[in-house]
């Protein structure tokens, strides 16, 4: 009898838990913030925009170079990529710590290459 009663309890709990967990999972998915998408254009000798803000979390940068294989480098995140012109280069990363993150073109692109830089500001507000 004990075994039967235990089986009944397990079946009952399982039957109740599955939909409950499913609901929680759907709720959790519904609450997960979508990645923040920022579009940038790279062109001798600047990025547009040269400064942008994001909240802590997942970020997707979509960068289009118009005229050169510029580079995009955020040294403090050890994140970099070449930016071949004619297509969108996507950089996906997570940044949790608020602060200012400088970025620069690290492929020498001409006379004012040294000025091709910008800043990403990560702020919870």
């Amino acid at each position, binding site marked *: 009898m004990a075994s039967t009663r235990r089986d009944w309890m397990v079946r009952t709990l399982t039957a109740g838990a599955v939909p409950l967990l499913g609901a929680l999972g759907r709720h959790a998915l519904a609450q997960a913030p979508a990645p923040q998408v920022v579009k940038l254009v790279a062109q001798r000798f600047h990025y547009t925009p040269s400064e942008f803000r994001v909240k802590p979390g997942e970020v997707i940068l979509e960068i289009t170079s118009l005229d050169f*294989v510029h*580079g995009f*480098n955020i*040294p*403090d995140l050890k994140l970099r990529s*070449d930016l071949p012109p004619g297509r969108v280069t996507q950089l996906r990363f997570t940044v949790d710590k608020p602060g200012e993150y*400088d970025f*620069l073109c*690290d*492929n*020498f*692109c*001409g*006379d004012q*290459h*040294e*000025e091709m*830089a910008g800043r990403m500001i990560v702020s919870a507000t």
Partner: protein
Amino acid sequence: MKRYQRRDLLKLAAIGGGAAYFAALGGCAAPSSPMGMQARAGAAKDYDDFYFVQLSDSHWGFSGPPNPDAANTLRKAVATVNALEHPPEFIVFTGDLTHTTDDPGERRKRMAGFRDIVSALKVKQVRFMPGEHDAALDRGAAFKEFFGETFYSFDHKGVHFIALDNVSDPGAKIGDEQLAWMKADLAKRPKDSPIVVLTHRPLFDLVPKWDWATRDGAQAIDILMQYPKVTVFYGHIHQEHHHMTGHIAHHSAKSLIFPLPAPGSQPARTPLPWDPAQPNRGLGFREIEAEPDVANYKIQELGVTRA
């Protein structure tokens, strides 16, 4: 006997505060004390020492407010070097001989102009290296036409010199091929050979957000770390700077066009403002007194003084 006289003169100058004295021996690379230099002077023997001059970052062709006298600065530097009491055994230019231009014809015109001016140097041997302003937009094609290979090695009185090219690739990479060449070149030497590496950009991450780095510089340093007597002289940052990676000392040189701010000291690496009262402020070159037997390199910074 002449070289002893010069060494003694430099020791005296160093004691007076005019020079820094660096060693590449087993991690001991701090400037030595005047007492130490006096001790060495007393123990002088027949060292086959010599001295050479490093010039860097002349950016011939540049014009703009950071140096309204840009058309004359290089000529003044040449005149200053020619006025040295003892001529160096050779001179090395560590890159950015010319200021960049998109126009291949203008690039060659600037290189020809630079070459004409420095041809007045009264020194037997002048060696050239590219900076990114010379070489990054055409992967060194114009530079090679005027000055030869962008990387090479040579020996001088017991010191093995390696000129590394970290600029012809616009991404500031030395590249696997050149790293393999350097590794093979070094493998031919005894491990304890005095080695001097000449390059344009810092091999280490000085200020990556200012592009003061070499993308694969860590790989070069890993190779060099296997040799106990290595010293690096470079340019790019337009100022004197000294840094250690392990036992390897890295010394950057002043420019001959305009000074840049101290590493990471402000948001952007904008040139320091030109001072009409001191038009050559922050510009200069250096003498390097090499003592191969002990892998010591005494650096004396000199300003551009001649008209």
